[in-house]
């Protein structure tokens, strides 16, 4: 394979923005149809009322809030890769981080829909914002639901700005070669960037501070989401380990989603020389770590339930593992903790078919984890008279969940054809500087 040079990096990465083929448009059309289906289902729910969803007391949170937590979790590894690994100078993140960061923004955009869908009267979403109503009553700043509004809004805003900041020099590179509507778009989006020494000085400084601001968000956002549950007294929710447990799970699912997206992207956009096996191996190694942490958390939850001596807590956990939904629990354990252990074998973590299969199953497992935590715990309230052991999953809910997956993938597909999914600047930075005195290696 020819050696990478600055010029070659530009050419190969910008080539991915060229006019797509028929397969791309078919994929976009199918995804748009999926989004339309989701929109239709949401419209039906708004028009008919919440009765068309499978919401019943006490398990009203079972579909939409489960999926909200799932999508917020997916976002997390993007920030881990783009911010934390940047601060730790992990150079292997370079070709991976742009896609991961874009995935973060799109996952939060998807997650943000679910509280609105769950509200029922979605047009009154602004009641969530911190301002007084006509009776001078404000939202409750001690409520984890308001913390969630602050956390998710901040996460989206900071992630979107961080993604955009990193994109500016690459958009300028694309602008200098584009024509037509693309050139107009890139001229606007690049803000007139010219890559002067002054611009790079302030850019480098701003980028580092953004990474520093985004780093605590990785920990804080899913901690806040976990407190939506722990601040209540529902057995199975009221636990002090939820914050680190949720954060580890979020990163676990996010890593799986990064692998799920990058393997097809690598193949479709012929990015093999940028997204090498080494990068997937590093992601797989990280998944072993997060999978072990998640497995440890599963064990600790059961230990705490037993050691607390609280019969309600123990009953909930026994029900979780051996009750009517025990099959979902054990599927969750196998998918999230068992399958990533395969990556201990170098042969398996270098095999793209195994990587893709395991990462898809981990995504399924992480949705099941949220379902088991949120929905199954709700079936065992303190009042046995209202226990409800079955879930009624309606076509409206199924359509909305499917639509959300299509929405996420559609955003990513469109992004991948408009903006570079591999950072031109950072890949170039990783190459040796071209010097007259060096003639054997580097760009000289």
């Amino acid at each position: 394979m020819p050696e990478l040079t600055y010029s070659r990096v530009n050419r190969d990465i910008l080539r991915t923005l060229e006019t797509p083929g028929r397969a791309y448009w078919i994929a976009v059309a199918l995804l748009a149809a999926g989004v339309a289906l989701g929109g239709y289902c949401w419209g039906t729910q708004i028009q008919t009322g919440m009765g068309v969803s499978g919401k019943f007391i006490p398990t009203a949170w079972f579909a939409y809030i489960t999926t909200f937590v799932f999508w917020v979790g997916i976002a997390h590894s993007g920030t881990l890769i783009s911010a934390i690994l940047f601060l730790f100078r992990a150079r292997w993140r370079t070709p991976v981080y742009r896609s991961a960061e874009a995935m973060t923004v799109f996952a939060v955009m998807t997650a943000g829909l679910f509280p609105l869908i769950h509200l029922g009267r979605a047009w009154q979403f602004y009641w969530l914002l911190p301002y007084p109503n006509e009776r001078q009553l404000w939202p409750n700043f001690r409520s984890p639901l308001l913390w969630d509004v602050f956390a998710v809004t901040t996460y989206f805003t900071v992630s979107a700005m961080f993604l955009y900041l990193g994109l500016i020099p690459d958009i300028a590179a694309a602008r200098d070669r584009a024509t037509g509507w693309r050139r107009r778009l890139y001229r606007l989006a690049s803000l007139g960037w010219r890559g002067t020494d002054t611009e790079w000085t302030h850019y480098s400084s701003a980028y580092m501070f953004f990474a520093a601001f985004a780093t605590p968000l990785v920990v804080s956002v899913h901690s806040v989401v976990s407190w939506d549950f722990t601040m209540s007294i529902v057995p199975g929710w009221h636990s002090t380990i939820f914050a680190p447990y949720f954060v580890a799970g979020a990163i676990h699912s996010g890593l799986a989603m990064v692998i799920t997206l990058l393997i097809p992207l690598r193949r479709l956009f012929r990015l093999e020389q940028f997204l090498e096996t080494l990068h997937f191996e590093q992601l797989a190694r990280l998944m072993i770590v997060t999978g072990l942490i998640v497995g440890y958390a599963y064990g600790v939850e059961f230990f705490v339930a037993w050691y607390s001596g609280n019969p309600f807590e123990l009953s909930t956990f026994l029900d979780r593992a051996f009750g009517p939904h025990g099959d979902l629990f054990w599927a969750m354990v196998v998918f999230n903790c068992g399958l990533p252990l395969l990556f201990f074998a170098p042969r398996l973590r270098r095999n793209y078919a195994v990587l893709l299969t395991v990462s898809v199953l981990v995504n399924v497992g992480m949705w099941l984890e949220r379902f088991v935590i949120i929905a199954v715990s709700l079936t065992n309230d303190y009042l046995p008279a209202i226990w409800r052991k079955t879930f009624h999953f309606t076509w409206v809910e199924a359509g909305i969940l499917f639509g959300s997956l299509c929405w996420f993938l559609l955003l990513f597909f469109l992004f991948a054809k408009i903006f570079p999914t591999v950072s031109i600047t950072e890949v170039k930075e990783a190459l040796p500087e071209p010097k007259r005195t060096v003639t054997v290696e580097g760009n000289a």
Partner: protein
Amino acid sequence: MSRTAYKAVEEAGVVGVFRHVDAVVESVRRAREQGWTALRVYQPVPSHTILAEVAPPEKSPVRFFALWGGVAGTVLGFALASFVGIKMHTYQGLLVGGKPPVSVPAYIIIAFELTVLLGALATLAGFILFSKLPRGENVAGYGPEFSEDRFGVFIPCDASRAEPVMALLREAGAEQVRFEEVYEED
């Protein structure tokens, strides 16, 4: 005569196109020795070798925006939540959830999120402000090669003084030198 001839020249100067970082550094040193201090370097990547030579020794003031944005967020978060708690308790007699009007542990979360939010917003604002963005097309000396694999050293000067500057850049190893002028926009 073209229409632009009636417009004032906004910026004029000589740009040298370089392939190698060490040649850029050498050209900058030579230019400064000859008194051409107000120069700028176009780079496809942030070359630390070049920035160490060209950029001012003090750190970017963007850091103060990050700091004060973050501080403003912390203060605003606590102030907003405390104001609401005190106001609702004092004027409406509401003690929500039986908690004190100023519930510090709960308000830390609001303050934390606003610290990050305002800190990041201020950092972006600082970057845009100090980088003088957004800017139009009127940038003398810039070429598309500078976003690919070439470096450019631009030395502002008028046409009468362009020759010695061009010679200087050529001697330092420029592949190409050219004199450019940009005119004020309508």
